């Protein structure tokens, strides 16, 4: 068989199948499954012979094709036929192909939009001067931003020392009380203030957990006044905020 396969960059098995269907001018709703399976396998062979890493997804699709092909060969079972018309074994694949085509087209449309900093430009401002105003509206802090902030602090942490085993165990409860004591008599606290410089990894982790616990206990709110700006900690209950929390380590589930 002399199929000519031009290897392009296929995003995945669906992309490759669409390409084969289009190239052979097949009707997507009535795919000649034997033909397409043969071509698909040849394409994978070519990819392998070119030492391209054939991802597992391509092989999975190959087996799906073979499965569909075998089902097409079998006569429809009598019981199923009696109940209602059996679904074409190709139906799910066709649905997936059409659906994928839809988003592939949508992706091309997105790419044709004038993009900021590619086709269109807006004025850029020095980050701080305008954004850090006191009166800015506050947004609540998202999970990802919080994790990014934690990563930022951890990156400052010095290289872990390998040989020393002198470990001081820090309890989350201690850190909770530490945060509360920091907050005492203040309106807010910046995220960075929580951590010593240079931060110790375990210290950072315990403090971060403590902060999350306080949020969970509704004693703290996390806000920021610009996207990806400073994260601020606010006491959630302004009145009679307990300066020392009666917490047992066990009650938090850390040990």
């Amino acid at each position: 068989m002399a199929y000519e396969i031009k290897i392009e960059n296929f995003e995945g098995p669906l992309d490759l199948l669409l390409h084969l269907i289009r190239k052979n001018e097949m009707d997507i709703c009535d795919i000649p499954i034997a033909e397409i399976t043969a071509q698909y396998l040849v394409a994978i062979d070519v990819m392998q012979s070119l030492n391209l890493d054939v991802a597992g997804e391509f092989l999975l699709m190959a087996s799906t094709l073979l499965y569909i092909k075998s089902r097409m060969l079998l006569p429809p079972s009598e019981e199923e036929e009696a109940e209602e018309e059996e679904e074409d074994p190709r139906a799910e694949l066709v649905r997936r192909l059409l659906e994928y085509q839809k988003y592939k087209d949508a992706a091309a449309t997105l790419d044709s939009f004038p993009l900021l900093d590619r086709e269109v430009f807006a004025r850029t401002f020095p980050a701080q001067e305008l954004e850090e105003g006191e009166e800015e509206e506050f947004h609540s802090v998202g999970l990802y931003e919080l994790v990014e902030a934690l990563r930022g602090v951890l990156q400052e942490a010095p290289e872990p020392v390998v040989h020393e085993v002198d470990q001081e165990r820090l309890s989350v409860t201690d850190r909770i009380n530490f945060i509360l004591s920091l907050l005492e008599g203040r309106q807010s606290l910046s995220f960075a203030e929580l951590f010593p410089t240079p931060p110790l990894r375990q210290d950072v982790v315990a403090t971060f957990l403590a902060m999350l616990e306080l949020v969970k206990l509704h004693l703290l709110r996390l806000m920021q006044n610009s996207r990806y700006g400073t994260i601020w900690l606010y006491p959630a209950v302004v009145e009679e905020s307990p300066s020392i929390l009666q917490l047992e380590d066990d009650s938090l589930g850390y040990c």
Partner: protein
Amino acid sequence: MIPLDTAELKTLVEALVFVSPEPIRLERIAEALDAERKSVALVLQDLVAEYAAVRRGFILQEIAGGFQFRTRPEHGEWVRRLVKNRPFRFSRAALETLAIIAYRQPVTRAEIEYLRGVDSGGVVKTLLDRHLLRILGKKDVPGRPMIYGTTREFLELFGLRELAGLPTLKEFSELNLDVLDAGADSVAPPEN
């Protein structure tokens, strides 16, 4: 303060949009100027129309629920000479993933991968790092997978007023396979 007359209001609104570092919302302008939202809206509408009509180097656009001055798309190549940033390109994987999430959010990674037929973990991570996606929460199904959605930066980047401003996918359902595939041999549209 003396209530502003329309002409004065217009110049002030223009000034606020001018100094704003990101698309500024109608509400914030109204609040800052102590003006009625309705009149600010009218003035903004006027300004948008004016900038579109008189041929200037930039236009006023409604982006991500706010207003911002932007250069004209057709000037992109020239402006880039000054800005000197290399024109970035999205990978097809990134675009496909963005498209799926934009249209189907909230969506899990498994759903994205089913639609694309390939692992999409890396690309989702990259898009999260670029702040084009955000985690909306966890889905209440076994495994509690994360669900993803697009961000305001996504709208800003693609110059969209709101998510509803995306071209409807219905248009796509009418497309047949080779509409966007320039150069493909013509095939009779499949009958559905």
